[in-house]
């Protein structure tokens, strides 16, 4: 089970993402913009995985990912971009930030698999302790 922060300005999509990941056993927190996401992180700590929409008002998911990375310990949060922007340069921009890039409409099993893959190495490492 991982702690997942999902951020999307489309609340319908946010509910779908939450439902799919909660049903897979993850703990979900949600935000509808970057400011709310950063507030949640300030209050509750960093998530294991951040699932970020890219096109959002005020601050894009790419910018939010950079802000999360710049926080102390933020590099340990895995980022998955979930976006309706599908041009190669959009995908490359997400991948350059080290995130997996899934496109909308999304396949629920692929999203769940991506979250599980994002956290798997950490769990293996933790078992080594």
């Amino acid at each position, binding site marked *: 089970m991982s702690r997942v922060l999902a951020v999307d300005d489309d609340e*319908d999509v946010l509910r779908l993402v939450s439902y799919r990941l909660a049903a897979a056993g993850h703990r979900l927190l949600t935000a509808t913009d970057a400011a709310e996401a950063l507030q949640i992180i300030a209050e509750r700590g960093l998530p294991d995985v951040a699932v970020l929409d890219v096109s959002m008002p005020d601050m894009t998911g790419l910018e939010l990912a950079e802000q999360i990375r710049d926080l102390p310990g933020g590099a340990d949060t895995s980022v998955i971009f979930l976006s*309706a922007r*599908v*041009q*190669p340069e959009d995908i490359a921009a997400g991948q350059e930030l080290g995130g997996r890039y899934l*496109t909308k409409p999304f396949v629920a*099993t692929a999203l769940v698999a991506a979250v599980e893959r994002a956290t798997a190495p950490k769990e293996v490492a933790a078992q080594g302790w």
Partner: protein
Amino acid sequence: MVPSPLPSAEERLAALRDNQRAFLSSASHELRTPLTSIIGYLEMVLELSGTLDGADRGHLETALAASHRLADVIDTLVASHRIDSEGLLLHIGRVEVGALLDPLTPEFRQRCARGRLELVTDYRHGEVQAELDTEAVGWLLRELVVNAVKFTPPGGRITLRSAVEGDELGLSVADTGPGIPAGDRAHVFERFYRSPDALDRAVAGTGLGLSIGKAIVDAHGGRLTVDSEPNGGTRVTASLPIHHRR
């Protein structure tokens, strides 16, 4: 005051291309966003509702299938327009073939399940790494699976196979559909070509997908081939050089 010089024809053309790209990107985004909710909630209702009768379930499945078709059409039109306006630009990188195929497999399995088809994966790429554009090759494989699902009657089987032969990576999608008549086989990679059989059976499509797929394979320096027999299914194989020849 000195008037600013008029933009040159090249500058006007570049500005027009930028506008077209921005429009296409925006239109694609604005269409995909509501489709995400439409598809996602239809899937949820179909999975969770135990009270739907057969007819209602069938109606929702029809709506879901139509929504996926719309998403596929948007994909194809965006890819086609981009290639027309900018040519096919590959972003070649060295990638483990497993890292290309594994993330795509759940989506392909779901596409087959929606068509009441079995997906068989026969991956024999081992640990090999190949130099290719993962997004473009992923797009090609999706197109091949979408086509195979469209043309294969329920109860059939789609086989996704990978193999390494010499310095080539072979990626193939085979179906148990009706096959392609010999007279149509030579035309399937032509732009906007729709086989008479597809038109007769009202199989949805733009006639663009395979032509774009061939452009992707050609740009990698590979070959895209079709093997098909009437009533014997169809196999489309992309043979891609493992080491990209620049």
